[in-house]
């Protein structure tokens, strides 16, 4: 990583270099995992997002100086929180010539200097507060996602910008504007009351899923998968499930994410190529995550209040239930997509349904549906068409469709996969089937 928070590691007492590199990577991992907790705890304490963020950053710089020398402390999150809090108190004291801040600093310094770090459960509550604040409907969706990634996920602004293919400056402005609105408009730092929860929850679920998808299928950068984003989204999903154990869509989203995640290592080959579902080595799928996902889906079925996340999770449950693509219950998947289309009649749902139809009724039936969809700028549409045309032996049409899909795709593993398929066509290696 090359950003503002690393230079501190270059100080002379951090030599030798080889050991340092490993330490630095480990510290960055810890930091990424702890950032949301630290920031959430500090916002609660100081009531100021900017201050919380800056102090968390400073604590990290200090960790980069100390930990390679002294070792990572047993409770790194607690260490970071205490260090950041003390820095924040120092900052407020320095600025205490203004009367209001003087009072705040006096209060904080006098009473909280030696207070132990709050236990984990209340930190989780803080993170939820922060999540609902970041996902407040008064903020634009892109700002919600950006704030969540920055403040809860601990991504740097350049990383968030990179994740969404916008210039760093644009993303910095977007985040600054959003934080300014939270402060000026007094967007509350709390989990909404029961009556408001269902509405507000939709935005939170959508944001978490966007984070997950950005990790699962990054649209830019050299990485085929951003494991950290997937893990962050799942972690947020688990926190949400702990707090709202009776919400079927919360369980549905968590199930969807863990079932998708269970196949992650099988999904990209060593050479960086995307491995399609029918070619994946199913023995490498993560059984623990699959079991967790299936339990959640069963729980949802008992509730009988299906929503879009639960239905997608159910589709993934059918996939992860089968030992091979042939043993997959495709009729069940078509039925689930039928249900989804009834709730959300979008061309993307229709496209996914058509793929399943192709497995039940053959590629011609599937292509007839696909050709009727207005999705010309959506690369999975062209990738799906290309595959169907290939299976029907229409090589020239398939090649054109692959070309269009490659042109529109952004993920490197996907591009590599589509290119391989197209080139295999040229070499005549794909008989109609």
């Amino acid at each position, binding site marked *: 990583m090359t950003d503002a928070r690393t230079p501190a590691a270059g100080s002379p007492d951090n030599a030798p270099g080889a050991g340092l590199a490993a330490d630095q990577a480990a510290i960055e991992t810890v930091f990424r995992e702890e950032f949301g907790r630290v920031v959430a705890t500090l916002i609660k304490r100081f009531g100021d997002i900017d201050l919380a963020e800056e102090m968390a950053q400073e604590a990290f710089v200090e960790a980069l100086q100390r930990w390679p020398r002294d070792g990572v402390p047993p409770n790194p999150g607690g260490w970071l929180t205490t260090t950041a809090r003390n820095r924040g108190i120092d900052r407020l004291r320095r600025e205490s010539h203004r009367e*209001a801040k003087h009072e705040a600093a006096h209060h904080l310094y006098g009473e909280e200097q030696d207070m132990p770090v709050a236990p984990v459960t209340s930190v989780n509550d803080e993170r939820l507060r922060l999540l609902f604040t970041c996902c*407040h409907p008064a903020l634009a969706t892109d700002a919600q996602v950006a704030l969540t990634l920055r403040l809860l996920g601990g991504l740097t602004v350049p990383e968030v910008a990179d994740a969404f293919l916008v210039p760093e400056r644009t993303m910095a402005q977007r985040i600054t504007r959003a934080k300014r609105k939270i402060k000026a408009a007094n967007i509350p730092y709390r989990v909404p009351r029961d009556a408001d929860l269902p509405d507000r929850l939709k935005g939170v679920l959508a944001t978490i899923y966007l984070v997950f998808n950005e990790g699962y299928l990054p649209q830019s950068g050299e990485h085929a998968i951003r494991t950290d984003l997937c893990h962050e989204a799942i972690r947020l999903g688990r926190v949400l499930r702990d707090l709202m154990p009776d919400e079927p869509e919360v369980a549905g989203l968590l199930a969807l994410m863990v079932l998708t995640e269970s196949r992650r290592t099988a999904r990209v080959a060593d050479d960086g190529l995307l491995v399609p579902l029918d070619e994946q080595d199913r023995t490498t799928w993560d059984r623990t995550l699959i079991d967790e996902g299936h339990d959640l889906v069963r729980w949802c079925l008992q509730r009988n209040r299906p929503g879009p996340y639960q239905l997608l999770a159910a589709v993934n449950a059918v996939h992860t239930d089968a030992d091979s693509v042939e043993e997959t219950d495709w009729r069940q998947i078509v039925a689930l997509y039928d249900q989804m289309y009834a709730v959300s009649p979008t061309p993307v749902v229709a496209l996914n349904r058509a793929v399943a139809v192709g497995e039940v009724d053959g590629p011609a039936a599937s292509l007839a549906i696909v050709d009727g969809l207005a999705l010309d700028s959506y690369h999975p549409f062209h990738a799906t068409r290309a595959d169907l045309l290939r299976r029907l032996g229409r090589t020239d049409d398939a090649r054109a469709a692959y070309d269009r899909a490659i042109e529109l795709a952004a993920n490197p593993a996907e591009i590599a996969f589509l290119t391989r398929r197209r080139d295999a066509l040229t070499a005549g290696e794909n008989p109609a089937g």
Partner: protein
Amino acid sequence: MTQYMLSVMGREGDPQPSDAEVQQIYQRVDAFNQKITAAGIWVFGGGLHEVSTSTVVDGTGTDVVTTDGPFSEAKEFIGGFWVLEAPDLDAALKLAAEASQACGDPVEVRPFIDEAQFLAEHGIDA
């Protein structure tokens, strides 16, 4: 507490309400006003005459220029407003929803600058 302005957004070409409708709107708005007054959060508010009654005064140049009509040629305009106090944006949005239902137009919610905070941010000693 934060002070918010709730602006009633009228749109050019909106149908003119009948007298009976106007009466209903007045009753609903009056009930809303009484409610926020009783709650102690009313600061100020009122309805405005139509846009054609406005005059713009521009003193930013060497001469003061006075012109007939609104400042911007926007298709939307402020028909009236409330200034009220609410503990946070969620509370203000709830009130705005009631206000919008009462007056029959969309309502824009905007926070007032907190003077002490503004002065501190800009390094101005009070």
